[in-house]
């Protein structure tokens, strides 16, 4: 009889455990193919590492329940039409509880239309352009520091080093890059720099010869701009091939990828405005330290994390924290928890604007400048050079 009672007890325990372990579905698209694939894959790895870490620890604990995380994820082919179809599918067919954004401002702008229509929370990462957050959205929350900050940091660093520099802006004709460069041009003039050349190029440009000839003719000593990995890496390669005598080159996004070092000598000295660097020393109130994140990431992917990877992981952490604060997965309660979030993780501070005209805009996070430099052994490494308070090396200026 005792044995029967004991078995019944074990069975009821296992039933209780089964009934309290629930699943949260997080939906997002990844640009596994197309022009955005390098940056998008880095972001995906951040999501994936967060999910695996959470599930290994027994899931998200909220309201007395444990929620295991599962993904609904598809390849958007770097194509906004696919994003529109797939976000609808993830909400209606895969029943996603929460969403992460695709990579890039333009794809996110498309996804946000769908998620707002269905009143679903979407944490955006890899989507810095402010415009999307100024359309009255209620369920959109931005993890990246806004686009206006990207090149202003580079101009501040330049002002400190060479206030008489002449500046050229060469940038991708895409929503993110235009959103970065437009305020940066105005800021450069405000700082007293002579902006001698500015031109946008088509997103699929592979031949920069004509633009490079114009940069040389303009006598610019500094070039700021770029867009994403495919065009940014090509531009850097061709600037080096044409031996353009520039003292400083700062490009958006592309140089943050570990793949950048494959450019060899063309990579040296290039600066990237960064959302996060492994040398960052934020004291995490929640989640792993930067060192622990870096170790776990390198162990899993055999490569150092980029800021896209860190942004991906941090999106998961912020969502996890909000679910815990809300005591469950109810959309309204989790949205309210996100609205009141002011949290420092290994990625830095995250706080979302609750002002109606810019709801969800990131107002807590700030930008670093990282520069590719040769270390003592000659290996290419990325060093934090700005702000000066957090630098791991001096800015190399001029590059050569």
């Amino acid at each position, binding site marked *: 009889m005792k044995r029967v009672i004991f078995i019944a007890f074990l069975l009821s325990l296992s039933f209780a455990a089964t009934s309290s372990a629930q699943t949260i579905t997080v939906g997002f698209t990844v640009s*596994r*193919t*197309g*022009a955005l*694939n*390098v940056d998008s894959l880095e972001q995906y790895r951040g999501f994936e590492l967060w999910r695996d870490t959470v599930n290994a620890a027994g899931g998200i604990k909220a309201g007395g329940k444990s929620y295991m995380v599962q993904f609904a994820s598809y390849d958007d*082919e*770097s194509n906004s039409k696919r994003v529109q179809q797939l976000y609808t599918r993830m909400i209606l067919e895969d029943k996603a509880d929460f969403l992460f954004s695709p990579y890039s401002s333009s794809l996110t702008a498309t996804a946000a239309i769908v998620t707002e229509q269905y009143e679903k929370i979407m944490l955006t990462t890899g989507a810095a352009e402010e415009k999307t957050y100024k359309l009255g959205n209620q369920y959109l929350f931005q993890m990246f520091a806004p686009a206006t900050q990207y090149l202003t940091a580079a101009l501040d660093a330049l002002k400190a080093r060479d206030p008489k520099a002449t500046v050229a802006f060469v940038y991708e*004709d895409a929503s993110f890059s235009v959103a970065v460069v437009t305020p940066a041009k105005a800021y450069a003039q405000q700082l007293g720099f002579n902006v001698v050349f500015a*031109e*946008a*190029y*088509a997103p*699929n*440009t*592979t*031949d920069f*010869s*004509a*633009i490079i*000839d*114009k940069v*040389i*003719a303009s006598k610019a000593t500094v070039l700021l701009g770029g867009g994403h990995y*495919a065009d940014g*890496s*090509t531009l850097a390669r*061709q600037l080096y*091939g*044409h*031996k353009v*005598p520039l003292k400083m080159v700062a490009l958006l996004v592309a140089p943050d990828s570990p793949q950048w070092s494959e450019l060899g000598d063309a990579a040296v000295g290039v600066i990237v405005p960064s959302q996060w660097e492994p040398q960052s020393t934020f004291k995490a109130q929640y989640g792993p330290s930067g060192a622990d994140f870096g170790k776990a990431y390198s162990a899993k992917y055999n490569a150092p994390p980029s800021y896209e990877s860190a942004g991906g992981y941090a999106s998961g952490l912020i969502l996890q924290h909000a679910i815990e604060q809300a005591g469950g997965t109810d959309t309204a309660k989790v949205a309210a928890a996100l609205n009141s979030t002011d949290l420092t993780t290994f990625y830095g501070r995250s706080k979302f604007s609750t002002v109606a005209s810019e709801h969800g805009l990131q107002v807590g996070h700030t930008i670093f400048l990282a520069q590719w430099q040769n270390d003592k052994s000659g290996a290419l490494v990325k060093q934090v050079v700005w702000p000066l308070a957090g630098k791991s090396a001096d800015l190399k200026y001029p590059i050569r």
Partner: protein
Amino acid sequence: MSGILASMIDGLLIGSVYGLAAMGLSLIWGVMDVINLTHGSMIALGMFGMYLLFSATASNAYFLLAPLIVVGLVLGIIVYWLAVNWVVDRPILMSLLSTFAVNMVVIGLGTAIWSTSPYNVNFSVPGITVGEYTFTGNHIAAASSAVVIALLLELFLRRTRAGKAIRAVADNRAAAELMGISSTRVLMVAFAIGIALAMASGALVSTLFPFTILSGAGYQLKSFVVTVLAGLGKPFGALIAGVLLGLLEGAVSPFIAVSWIPLIEFGLFVVVLIAFPRGIFGKATA
């Protein structure tokens, strides 16, 4: 050196590659009256062919052009028998659809194998510096290779029996057949040469710029413009027209945003179609 001159030299160098790309299209169009819509995908296959061969051998990329041209000839013969021979004398829409179908198959297979992510051939040749401007060795080598291949083709068409047969079939197929020329074999050879030229131009482009399986489409469009400029069936004229197009790009780019250049090119395309319907180098019909 002035910026305009440097820009025109850059334009001339890349224009030679446009010209080589257009030669294949022009030859097939002129000889067979077939608008070959596999042209772009064959250029892309040339890019990936160079990538694979270079990755495997790590030898001088420009020495790899010869085996790639042979691969192009074989591929051209296969595509001819699979998709072109059946539609040669049929309405032009048939050949458009047939070659478009092959194009879609190649793009589909290419996307499955290589995705649409960019690839690079990491091979560089030292450049030449004049004042502040440096002309990369790869551009110079690619342009030189394009001119050499174009000259060899011209010699083949003018000096060899097979080449003369191609020209004869292009001028008057019925008369050529009466002279004992097998027009089917000639058309097959012409098509194979056209594909080989497309692949060679793709291989040269791959040494200059990153590429994806979709990259051929842009060069196919430029090839149409160059072919119309030169006139149908004028392969060497296509090379000259390509150089002219490159020079035009170089000459106007210092004065306007580069993103406006396609507008000027296609504007020119329309003007030439109206003013010289048979192309700059084309003969008026009697």
